[in-house]
């Protein structure tokens, strides 16, 4: 039934994607092609097409500029709902239920997930041995996370560490194979240039039996709800970005990058291709993914066997 609904969406509303895609292909930004340059591999940056090696620095710039207002903007844009999503995400993982865990949280910048993991283990299982390595490619985001953790009891304890690194290429010295029990990445994977590389690194650093869990914006399957969501995304969110953060473009990038992310079954297949064992190709109990709020956000899980 899920597949039928999705097919209906795709064929009944073909112009939706067309209307949303900008098609002025004659002015790709931000780097004009220099004659003789060998930049043949391109990728998407929101709805723009950019050389692959440029995407990382563009994303870095976006997050450097949003870092200090990141949490405020998240609250404003989702009207606080992102907290519910993150609570449900971490709740479903039950960290600490089977003993202390070594966790790694990628794109963990401001520390939302790490804090929830440590609090869940402490409050529910009196677990003070679980540790989280917060990894982010952007130093400004890590700084915000470090500042936030200073207000908690985990500051200066072995339970949390902040490390700057690229999710696609975790250094083998700092992140050896088969180290972690839990790998989380919340609202970060769509900003990475190569998702398969991120999944490969996740597979490498997880122990056998370890869990991969990804929380990310995804495709809304209900067409009516989808229209409202699109209207809100493309209309209200960039405006909130310009009013609250003085930065319309970063938030325009944000909503475009959500549309560019693979759908639930596509992403589940990519996770399976990286070697993880996933549930059935359907939503919900026993499935490879769980939709939150009709598909606005989605939790994908996999286990390394």
């Amino acid at each position, binding site marked *: 039934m899920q597949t039928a609904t999705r097919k209906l969406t795709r064929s009944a509303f073909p*112009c939706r994607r*067309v*209307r*949303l*895609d*900008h*098609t*002025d292909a*004659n*002015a790709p*930004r*931000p780097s*004009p092609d220099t004659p003789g340059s060998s930049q043949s591999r391109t990728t998407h940056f*929101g*709805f*723009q097409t950019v050389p692959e090696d440029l995407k990382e620095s563009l994303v870095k710039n976006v997050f450097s500029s949003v870092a200090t207002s990141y949490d405020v903007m998240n609250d404003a844009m989702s009207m606080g709902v992102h907290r519910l999503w993150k609570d449900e995400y971490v709740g479903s993982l039950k960290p600490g239920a089977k003993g202390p865990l070594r966790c790694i949280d990628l794109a963990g910048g401001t520390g939302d997930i790490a804090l929830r993991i440590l609090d869940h283990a402490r409050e529910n299982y009196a677990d003070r041995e679980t540790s989280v390595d917060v990894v982010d490619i952007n130093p400004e985001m890590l700084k915000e996370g470090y500042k936030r953790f200073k207000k908690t009891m985990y500051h200066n304890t072995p339970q949390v560490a902040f490390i700057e690194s690229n999710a696609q290429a975790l250094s083998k010295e700092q992140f050896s194979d088969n180290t972690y029990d839990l790998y989380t990445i919340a609202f970060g994977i769509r900003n990475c240039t190569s998702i398969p590389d991120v999944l490969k690194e996740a597979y490498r650093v997880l122990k056998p039996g370890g869990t991969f869990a990804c929380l990310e914006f995804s495709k809304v399957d209900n067409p009516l709800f989808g229209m409202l969501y*699109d*209207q809100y995304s*493309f*209309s*209200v969110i*960039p*405006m*909130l970005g*310009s*009013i*609250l953060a*003085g930065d*319309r*473009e970063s938030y*325009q990038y944000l*909503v*475009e990058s959500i*549309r560019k992310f693979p759908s639930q079954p596509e992403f589940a297949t990519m996770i399976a291709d990286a070697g993880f064992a996933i549930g059935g190709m359907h939503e919900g109990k026993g499935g490879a993914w769980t939709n939150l709020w009709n598909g606005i956000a989605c939790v994908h899980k996999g286990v390394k066997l």
Partner: protein
Amino acid sequence: MSAAFRLSKQAASASSRVIPQTRNALRTVSSAFTQQARHSSSQPLYPGHVPLNWFEHAFMLAGSSYMALTAPARHDMVAAVGDLTSGPVLPALRDQMLASPEGRRILKERPRINTQTVDMQKLASLPEGTLGRTYVTWLERCHVTPDTREPVHYVDDPELAYVMQRYRESHDFYHCVVNLPVDVTSELAVKFFEFANLGLPMAGFAAAFGHLRISSAKRQRLFKEYVPWAIKCGGSAKSLITVYWEQRWEQDIGELKRELGLWDAPEAKWPKPRSES
């Protein structure tokens, strides 16, 4: 004009059926021009243009007014309120420009005022008492530069957007010609002056509400001395949006003031010079 563009795009996918002139205009736009996903199938018409539908217009107006009042250091929000409320008045200003030969030249050539387009060294070397020399001295005395003006985003017609941009960039000249610095009282005095001379709603709002932020002593002085001057002078002077400042650098400032029907504002407190070098 923008309605026609929207209709022409609603037929099919975004820009494949755009009329050739528009497509060429979009192509020749500079690389600082941001591409956007336009949900309501309206395309930007000039660099920095952000087309808004009625809901977005209202939302931006509410949001940016709130931010401009609570955080006036957010110049982009003050500029946004200016853009969003300028609707009824800009065509009238454009018509005033069209009615004078000098204004027509401005609309045709569309000059911009920033440190790239204005040769500051040359102006500093002009004789004392000329507009150019007075302007450069004023910039130095107030420790400001013409480079910090937010571009226009929310005006739909490109020509009216230029008129708004011209108004913003000429603001410093209004200070300079009536000999006012950039402290809050003087800014408010200039807002009253601009409202009397040009009629822009934003100048009116700033004038009407801006004085709530200053001390009562300053407010008294503002209303006792500056406001009568601003209304008399601004109301009787020639429309300053039609003045082609860049072509008058060598003109004597006294002669310029007589020609435009302006006279100096009441004496104000100037900032101390930054260094005695």
